[in-house]
């Protein structure tokens, strides 16, 4: 490695100066260092700012410590350099802040990479404990998760917090062996709490990232050098039904992947939970982790289809188009392999969805994919009729079809029925003079009642077009001018295709 100077150059310590200006410590790593490593005694006068950093003449032991940290033989494979630097910085900063630069036994202080490893091991243990608790308790992660979320929030607004709400990688666990060897100074606690306030977005992202790396689901596997990526599919060994979703950043660990028999049980469990609790956030998360497990194990069979179908239906019901689309893409490929499931139902949804997004290219592709037999299937025929009714401007037929939609297609049609009503109204206003019965609008545009139709007209500033006459409420189409036309162009402008929740 390079000489001491390279690492003691001012730039390496720049953040230290910055930190002086802004009161809250920038990173949350520091308290860990303080709790675990005894040397820096509590600052005698923490409020008083030490002398400007620039003038500090680093003591030789500190220089040596830094140098040792970066010596190749001391580097650890599983600790990224960036993380190490942050840790190193934090250690020295805290020592400087507490004026203990001279007193710390730098020669025997663990190197930053060793600290990081120790923290990880600790996090793993506490996480494991947590997951054991979950398994024992009847509530399951659903509640815990909510609790955590709430807690996270309260943390943000600077409220009080208890140690349970700490993310696992931060938790100080008294059972920890390392901890036992360390004298822990209670007086550091307030300082500790301080670090959690002002959770900036940046910091949250950092937490998230951190979580992926060391906390999270990977850590039941303690001796954790991640397994060599294998060329074949993973075969999972995990026996736990529920699993939180994390995006993979490295090859999956078999002990964290649930094999198909377990996944089948998971699906049953989730179906029950969805019926009982209807918590979409939880369900979506669980389904994503199921899909991930299926993918990494390359399981493609009827069960896979079922998982995607159920997730797609739930997402559709909740209007989560992002997830819905991901599932649909997969289903399309899975159906192409003739693995069973309900291809007719979902192909019909596809057509309706592309009508919603006005995606002509995709519509054309769908038409190209359909067989003659499929075109005669009820749901698909319905969707195709919807398409052609709209293409020909036949709103009369469109709204008849809308009122008679098979399966869950109405969720999709609801997404574009408003704009089609506006289109039809523009049409009617240009073609009918002088007026029509409101009842006619109600019937033609598939409203449930005259009241709904009137409300719709009023919602688009058409109050003045409604008039009470002898034979009931009338809609003066001849005087509407461009109001529905304008609303229509607005509604057709651009459909946000992703629509992620």
């Amino acid at each position, binding site marked *: 490695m390079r000489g001491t100077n390279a690492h003691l150059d001012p730039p390496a310590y720049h953040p230290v100066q910055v930190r002086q200006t802004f009161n809250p410590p920038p990173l949350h790593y520091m308290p860990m260092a303080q709790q675990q490593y005894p040397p820096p005694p509590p600052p005698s006068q923490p409020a008083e700012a030490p002398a400007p950093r620039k003038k500090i003449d680093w003591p030789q032991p500190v220089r040596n410590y830094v140098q040792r940290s970066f010596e190749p033989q001391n580097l650890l494979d599983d600790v990224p350099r960036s993380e190490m630097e942050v840790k190193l910085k934090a250690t020295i900063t805290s020592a400087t802040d507490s004026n203990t630069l001279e007193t710390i036994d730098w020669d025997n202080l663990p190197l930053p990479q060793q600290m990081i490893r120790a923290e990880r091991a600790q996090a793993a243990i506490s996480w494991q404990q947590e997951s054991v608790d979950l398994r024992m308790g009847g509530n399951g992660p659903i509640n815990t998760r909510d609790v955590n979320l709430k807690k996270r929030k309260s943390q943000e607004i600077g409220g009080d917090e208890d140690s349970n709400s700490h993310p696992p990688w931060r938790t100080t666990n008294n059972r920890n062996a390392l901890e036992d060897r360390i004298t822990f100074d209670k007086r550091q606690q307030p300082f500790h709490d301080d670090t959690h306030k002002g959770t900036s977005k940046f910091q949250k992202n950092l937490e998230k990232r951190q979580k992926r790396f060391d906390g999270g689901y990977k850590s039941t596997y303690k001796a954790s050098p991640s397994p060599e*990526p*294998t*060329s*074949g*599919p993973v075969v999972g060994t995990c026996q736990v039904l529920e699993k939180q979703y994390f*995006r*993979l*950043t*490295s*090859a*999956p660990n078999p002990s964290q992947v649930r094999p198909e028999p377990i996944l089948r049980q998971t699906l049953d469990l989730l179906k029950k939970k969805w019926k009982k609790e209807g918590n979409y956030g939880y369900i979506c998360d669980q389904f*994503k982790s199921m*899909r*991930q497990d299926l*993918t*990494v194990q*390359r399981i*493609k069979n009827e069960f896979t289809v079922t998982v995607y179908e159920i997730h797609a239906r739930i997402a559709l019901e909740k209007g989560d188009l992002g997830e819905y689309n*991901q599932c649909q*893409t*997969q289903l*399309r*490929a899975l159906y*192409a392999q003739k693995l069973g499931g309900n291809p007719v139902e979902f192909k019909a949804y596809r057509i309706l969805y592309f009508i919603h997004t006005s995606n*002509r*290219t995709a*519509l*054309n*592709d769908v*038409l*190209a994919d359909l067989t003659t037999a499929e075109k005669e299937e009820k749901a698909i025929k319905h969707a195709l009729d919807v398409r*052609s009714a709209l*293409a*020909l*401007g*036949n*709103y*009369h*037929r469109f709204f008849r079809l809308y009122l008679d939609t098979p399966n869950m297609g109405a969720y999709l049609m609801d997404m574009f029925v408003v704009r089609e009503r506006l289109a039809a109204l*523009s*049409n*009617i206003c*240009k*073609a*009918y*003079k*002088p007026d*029509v019965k409101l009842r*006619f609008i109600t*019937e*033609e545009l598939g409203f449930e009642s005259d009241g709904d139709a009137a409300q719709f007209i009023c919602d688009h500033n058409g109050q003045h077009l409604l008039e009470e006459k002898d034979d009931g409420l009338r809609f003066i189409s*001849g005087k509407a001018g461009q109001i529905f036309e304008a609303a229509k162009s607005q509604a057709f402008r651009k459909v946000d295709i992703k629509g992620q929740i």
Partner: protein
Amino acid sequence: MDPIFDDFRKAYEEGNGYDLSMTLSPVDPDDQPDRLYKFFRSTNFAQVKKDLQYRILYDNAAPFKLPAEEGNGWVEVYLAYWKAVGEILNAENAPKSNAKTSWTKVYDSWKEMTNALIRGYTNCGFEAWTVPCLYVAGKYMRIFAIKADEATGASAGSVNNFQDDFNPEAEKNEKLEDAARQLNRIFTICLSDRAPLEESRKWGIYNIINLLFKTYFKLNSISLSKNILKAIQAYRGDMPTLDAFPKAHQVTFKYYVGVIYFLEENYEESEKNLTEAWQLCHKDAIRNKELILTYLIPCHLLTTHTLPTQALLSPYPRLQRLFLPLSRCIKKGDLSGFDAALVAGEDEFVKRRIYLTLERGRDIALRNLLRKVFIAGGFEDAKDANTPPVRRTRIPVAEFGAAISLGSKETMDSDEVECLLANMIYKNLMKGYIARERGIVVLSKGGAFPGTGV
């Protein structure tokens, strides 16, 4: 090896890029059916580099001397070419079972050759007149990629991506997507050349763009073509205008741009580009003209409501089959005939991506039918003999309804008939209004059906 390098020297001497590019062709010329085989067998892995260096750099018999850097660049290109030829010969003779690996190898080795060429331009000072070599490289890269993907079929892709879901598309077109990226690199080295125009690689740009379009269409990612159009729009100040390029490049380019607009439903722009392509197209390029007309005819139907004449279609039996039945029904205003013709041609229309456009021709058929009803209505009783006769402009909805239901087995209910009439009025195909309470349509006295003479 000699025939290739005789050609190489000759082309270099004359500065003939197209002849030069033929020395890199992966296909035997007609007059030398075993040129590739002989070339490959004329040397071996141990000797090939030396042989190439000798022929390109040190041959004293050559009438000119290449700068060492440029010469070495060509040695690399031909070295990669020689290896690729080996793979091609191998793949062509390989048994079916090995097709997958051998075409993948062909693609990879051809990509190596292309990379050597690209390096030649970026590092070794290859001159702009040699760009046809890039055309050949790009053209066959696309072809080999398709072959490799076809051979790969449904076999499993790599497992080591950490996606949550499978990516079915990527697995199917792995090599072709890669080819698109390589073509994009070629596009970039042509576009970003800062040499003066006379000796700029920019002259290669439209050929490469056309290859890219072709690839994007095949990949079904037509939207990517728009990026290319944006890029050349941004560079337009430093570029020769399109009409300065070879006509072949122009025609293909305009054709693709026309189709892209067509798919975006921008029929005016589409018509403009396709018409230009049509006019520039070589008169004997029947196949190309047929392709252009495939989109130009539906375009015309929507923009000007005109149908193709018998004379226009006569040289193209395929187009006749495609368009004549529909045209006849539109002309007659035969709605049920139109629907039947649309169903009958659906597969072909969908394949050509013109189904959704042609479907809208139904409006014209309907307009023609309603116009017939109007004309059949005759004239109002003249009040006095001197005024010109006035057509009957108050027509019961039921009369239109009867016409619309002609030929179909069921009668359309009057609300739906009104809906269709409202559409005609809304789209300005018919002028007038519906008086619902009285059940009549009041048509305009002056031009009830704009543009049709009544």
